[in-house]
């Protein structure tokens, strides 16, 4: 019986991230439009877009291979699994321990690996430019992310997200420089990973500046829907990650009852709203940088991560 309840909560989490992801994207777009004094589309527009794309025919390039057709589903599934393993409204879910933070980062890396391959499949120069730039950005973003994970894991003594967020919510944490560095670094990585301004512009099709959009240029119909969905899920994943690590309050614990879960979900929705607002505000306030500035930006995140970890290693004896 308990097993079934646990499974139900885990299933709720999977459904929740799936349902909320397009809403989050819509929310960010809406707030951005309002900040630019535009009315903007409804926050539900991403759902409509997804439905429209799913119903359309797929127009496949002549020499597209099975990899090109399988990749959207794999990318979607991998991102979905990664997003469902992050505590959104409750910690200690049934399968939360099946992948720790390092494994979740690597899962996101798997999705990117297939996306970069899919970009090269048709053999157009746009796909190539996207993949080539994506792996360059990732080759800096991933180590930065892992160093940030090191900082958090050393602070909390665990790489298990549930344990880390429980530690962050406790009184032991206090005000720590290295955790602050990790937060700033994580935000920088999240911006890069989600192809947001200033690293990439999700709204552009101007070939000289695009990275993510260049890789998915040849996609259409349901395949494109899957990729757009995966992109929304990834944004949700990073916002949930930042929320559960740095604002862990309101998370329900494993043994709590339905009411705490309901509170947890309400708090989580609030966190997403705040996250979307902050992201929109940041994106409106800043300009996109050119591609070869990105390494410096990511290098800063890498250094923040390294400094944070070093500080922890050094301060252990004091």
């Amino acid at each position, binding site marked *: 019986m308990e097993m079934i309840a646990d499974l139900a909560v885990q299933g709720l989490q999977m459904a929740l991230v799936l349902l909320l992801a397009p809403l989050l994207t819509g929310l960010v777009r809406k707030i951005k439009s309002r900040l630019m004094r535009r009315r903007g589309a409804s926050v539900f527009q991403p759902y409509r877009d997804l439905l429209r794309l799913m119903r359309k025919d797929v127009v496949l390039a002549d020499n597209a291979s099975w990899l090109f057709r399988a990749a959207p589903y*794999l990318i979607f599934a991998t991102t979905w699994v990664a997003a469902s393993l992050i505590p959104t409204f409750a910690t200690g879910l049934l399968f939360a321990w099946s992948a720790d933070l390092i494994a979740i980062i690597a899962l996101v890396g798997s999705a990117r690996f297939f996306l970069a391959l899919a970009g090269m499949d048709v053999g157009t120069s746009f796909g190539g430019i996207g993949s080539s730039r994506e792996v360059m950005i990732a080759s800096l973003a991933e180590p930065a992310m892992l160093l940030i994970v090191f900082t958090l894991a050393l602070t909390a003594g*665990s790489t298990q997200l549930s344990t880390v967020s429980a530690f962050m919510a406790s009184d032991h944490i206090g005000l720590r420089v290295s955790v602050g560095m990790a937060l700033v670094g994580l935000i920088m990585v999240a911006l890069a990973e989600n192809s947001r301004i200033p690293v990439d512009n999700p709204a552009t099709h101007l070939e000289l500046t695009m990275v993510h959009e260049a890789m998915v240029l040849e996609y259409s119909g349901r395949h494109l829907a899957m990729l757009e969905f995966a992109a929304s899920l990834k944004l949700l994943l990073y916002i949930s990650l930042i929320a559960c690590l740095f604002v862990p309050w309101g998370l329900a614990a494993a043994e709590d009852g339905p009411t705490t879960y309901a509170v947890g979900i309400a708090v989580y929705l609030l966190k997403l709203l705040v996250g979307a607002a902050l992201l929109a505000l940041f994106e409106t306030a800043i300009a996109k940088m050119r591609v070869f500035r990105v390494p410096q930006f990511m290098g800063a995140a890498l250094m923040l991560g390294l400094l944070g970890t070093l500080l922890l290693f050094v301060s252990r004896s004091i």
Partner: protein
Amino acid sequence: MTDPVALSLWCVAALLATAVLGVALSRSGAATRLVYGVATAISVAALLSAAVRLLNPLSDTATLILPLGLPWIGAHFRLDVLSAFFLIVVNLGGAAASLYGLGYGRHESAPHRVLPFFPAFLAGMNLVVLSSDAFSFLLSWEFMSLTSWAMVLAHHRDAQNTRAGYVYLVMATFGTFALLLAFGLLAGPNGGYAFDAIRSSARTPMVSALVLILMLLGAGSKAGLVPLHVWLPLAHPAAPSHVSALMSGVMTKVAVYGFIRVVFDLLGEPAWWAGLLVLAIGSITAVLGILSALMEKDIKRLLAYSTIENIGIVFISLGLSLAFKANGMAAAAALALVAALFHVLNHSMFKSLLFFGAGAVLTATGERDMDKLGGLIHRMPATSVLFLIGCVAISALPPLNGFASEWLAFQAVLISPDLPQWALRLAVPAAGGMLALSAALAAACFVKAYGISFLGRPRSSAAETAVEVDRYSVAAMAILAALCLLAGILPGGVVDTLAPVTQALMGSSMPVQLHTPWLSLVPIAQSRSSYNGLLVLVFIAASSGFAVYFIHRFASRIIRRAAAWACAFPEFTPAMQYSAGSFSQPIRRVFGTLVFRAKEKVDMPAPGDVRPARLTVSMSDLSWEAIYAPIGGAVMLVADRLNFLQFLTIRRYLSVVFVLLVTLLLVVAVWR
């Protein structure tokens, strides 16, 4: 039941007999089939006997002494758990390569230059792992080097291969020389050359330090540690592909074995700075190796450079293990050693797989240059799937095996704040960062390798007309791919199998993994960290299955084919696709200016001029320029200066000999 050592030695004898058979039959038609078939069978037998030995920790580790070699020592052979593990690695690679050879060897233009040496090479690697005294170790080591050297020169009419063979010979000789000195120091003045005698004798810290450095030079030059790696990207690709797989996937592991055997077993308690040194060299090797791989456009050279990276990863874990061991943290040392050994096994599997894939591409197209490949996924369906599995595994992506071992290495890094030394505490996070960087760059590198060679449109007519390779080659690749997946989803099984090894070397082992719920990997405690490859695979399969079902059931399932869109920008020729060089250009700009002193020169004709514009990229290998070129220059200079010695009269020669003798006697007299 027979003694396991004797069984393994019989396998070696059978391999040597096969080598003789190869000499006798090499020019007849059936020889290829016979030699590789027999080698497959023997390797499987040796693999099974080693596996039985490792899984049965109670069986005795008696030393077998054969009346060979130096008369007053004899040849000692011993099969302990460490040897058993490496025998598994050697013979797994050997069996796969022999099976692959059954198909690949048929296309060999000079079978008489490969067939006799291939089983002998396998025998040599087995012998290194089995030997238990310095003399037979060095002899087997040299045998292994020379047989592989012979196969590097199988196509000796190619000037590049001749150069590769020359550089390899010089480096192998240097390596053995360093090992010779190391064993001389280990044996001490009384000449106790048997490993048992070495293990029980005491040494001053100074001697131990010297031995460690000599081992890093000797074993490191064979394994490919920077800056002793220069021969590796030349020699490994020059050999036939299944031999490349053995050299890259297995022989480097034999070198790792040599290092572990001496430094972890024979040398006794390590000093803490040994860990620091190994860690630093490992980190530099990992990052430099993968950056060099990213710059390559020759697929086999790319794979060889990536071997250097993986050896770096193994040495990072070994360094961590030494650091923990020196500080008495046995459990942590065991964790780091398991990470290293697991990665040894993993790399031997996926690197062999990838070299087999490269060999299949070479058979099908005759090309190693990725800029002449492309679109092979349509023409080589089986190879492309299996090569993709290898790429995912080597890029350390879950749920395959490369991730499991790197995950363990990260867990070991995360224990290290408990280390007392400041230098280690500063170095370990940096090494962790380098490990993360090399993992991310490896993913980039293998997106490039796969994307340029297998995806896109064919860049040459050879790639356009490629056909799938024979079923032996596909079977060899499929077995390795299946093992990569298996080790990835059940890492606990591998960790448990390694427990006796760490128990023997560290006096501690990781907790039993196969009893954890759902077969997860839990290195320390569930609340600290855990990873379950099986569940991750199931989740991904279930969610993608769900997505596919849902979409095809409730949404559209129509597909129309049309020309590629590409922003309506017509692309007339496949040459307009991204190439190997252009793909890595962003990374070259980020890292290359510093590491390779990469320079881009654009030669743009003036308006109205009709000659083509040119982009020239120049890169330099710093270790070659800073170390090898000066040494080579100095040797040439000295040789020139001493050239006159060749033309002396007999009277002069005698006086030179006399003066030298007197001088040496004087030195000895003063020394005493």
